[in-house]
């Protein structure tokens, strides 16, 4: 095992071995959840800051629980209350947090590359919790872990990502991780929501969901970002529902043991029907549980540059 990173910026920058190291490290944290004491003193005395420039409840909460189960102290900064409003630059905010002796900063930002800017400027460990349309590495890792846990392998599986690939950082992190692990990745959605050069990442493109679904071992449904509907990327929600909603009827055309995932929050009745979301194929709640264990593993594996005078 040789995982020596200060930061987790994206799965694009990791190789297959790194991904396997992370996968192998998750289980001890997950078994912790089954005990009456769900906590270990691993990061006692360390400070974890969540710095969210975009609203998020579930990712931030997941990171917070992960850090707390490792006994770290957690401080949550959200954009409304922070100094961004007062015009402070990203690097200055980061330096301020570093001066307060933060050990880990978990950042979500609407701009691609924001976590990397912080990572270069600071000794603090930076974890990307979503940047622009770029990556959401811990979501990619938890999807990878859930697939591996449920299917026993990743290599050779047909994984289908459905919906808004263009705006989805979850999709990008999934594609990087899954292709590196040897899965056959396909995407399906309206042409306006699929990047024109996506094949370069080794991905197959479908515009017809019913066609794409047949051979899939795993279907990962992405959230339709209704807030982007003003951009007129598809004619109407109704049409999207007709063509791309994952329904129980469509599910019947897939393999009987197909694994159904969704990163949440779900728009029931839009990208996924209620009966499909609640079907026995769905692992959506397990994804949430796995998310905490995966984030604990990441916090445990990363090494902040703690003191320069070591050794």
């Amino acid at each position: 095992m040789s995982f020596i990173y200060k930061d987790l910026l994206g799965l694009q920058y990791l190789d297959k071995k790194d991904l396997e190291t992370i996968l192998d490290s998750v289980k001890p944290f997950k078994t912790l959840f089954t005990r009456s004491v769900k906590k270990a003193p691993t990061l006692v005395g360390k400070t974890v800051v969540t710095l969210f420039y975009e609203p998020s409840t579930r990712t931030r909460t997941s990171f917070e629980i992960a850090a707390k189960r490792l006994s770290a102290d957690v401080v949550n900064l959200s954009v409304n209350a922070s100094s961004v409003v007062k015009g402070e630059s990203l690097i200055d905010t980061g330096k301020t947090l570093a001066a307060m002796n933060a050990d880990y900063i978990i950042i979500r930002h609407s701009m691609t590359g924001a976590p990397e800017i912080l990572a270069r400027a600071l000794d603090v460990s930076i974890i990307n919790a979503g940047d622009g349309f770029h990556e959401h590495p811990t979501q990619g890792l938890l999807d990878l872990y859930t697939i591996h846990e449920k299917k026993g392998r990743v290599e050779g599986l047909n994984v289908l990502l459905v919906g808004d690939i263009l705006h989805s950082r979850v999709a990008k992190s999934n594609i990087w991780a899954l292709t590196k692990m040897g899965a056959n990745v396909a995407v399906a959605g309206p042409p306006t929501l699929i990047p024109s050069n996506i094949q370069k990442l080794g991905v197959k493109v479908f515009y017809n969901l019913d066609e794409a679904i047949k051979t899939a071992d795993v279907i990962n449904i992405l959230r339709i970002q209704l807030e982007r509907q003003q951009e007129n990327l598809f004619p109407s929600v109704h049409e999207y529902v007709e063509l791309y909603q994952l329904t129980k009827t469509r599910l019947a055309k897939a393999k009987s043991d197909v694994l159904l995932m969704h990163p949440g929050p779900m728009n029931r009745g839009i990208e996924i029907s209620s009966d499909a979301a609640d079907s026995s194929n769905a692992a959506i709640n397990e994804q949430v549980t796995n998310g905490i264990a995966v984030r604990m593993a990441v916090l445990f594996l990363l090494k902040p540059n703690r003191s320069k005078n070591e050794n």
Partner: protein
Amino acid sequence: MSKILLDSAELNKAVKQMAKEIHKSVKDYKNLAIVGIHSNGVFIAKKILQELKTVTGFDIPFGTLDITLYRDDIDNLSSGEREIKDTEIPFDLEISKKNIILVDDVLYTGRTIRAALDFLMSFGRPQSIKLAVFVDRGGRELPIEPNFTGIKFHAGKKIKVECSQKDGEGRVVILD
């Protein structure tokens, strides 16, 4: 260069002697449980378990601990040391008032045992915990002493128990 201190047969003999001492001290096997610390403590613990089973016929509950998450030097762990093995405590230690024999291969600074005690306590409140170590190397940094010892080796040199979990063969070597 490394020198062999105990070969496989000598190791087994010393473990047998340890098991005898443990057996003498046990008043009631009903509440006894054995817990080995990963990796080589589990190896020694399994041997002790086998000896006690043979002598008493009791099916003694057995658990394993990986203390990585409880270490006090987390900042300085090498990436290899970050590999975590399975922790399994498949018995209740509080309600059944377990008397636990905690087993490790080498006792040196005492820090591993400190971590193991904290970890064990997170599973509940056992009636008692006793410590059995195969090699006592001296060099303690914490006030922790074993109740049962296989061999004492205070020559200030690094010592290692090498073992194969598969065939149960083990030996003790001195590292220079």
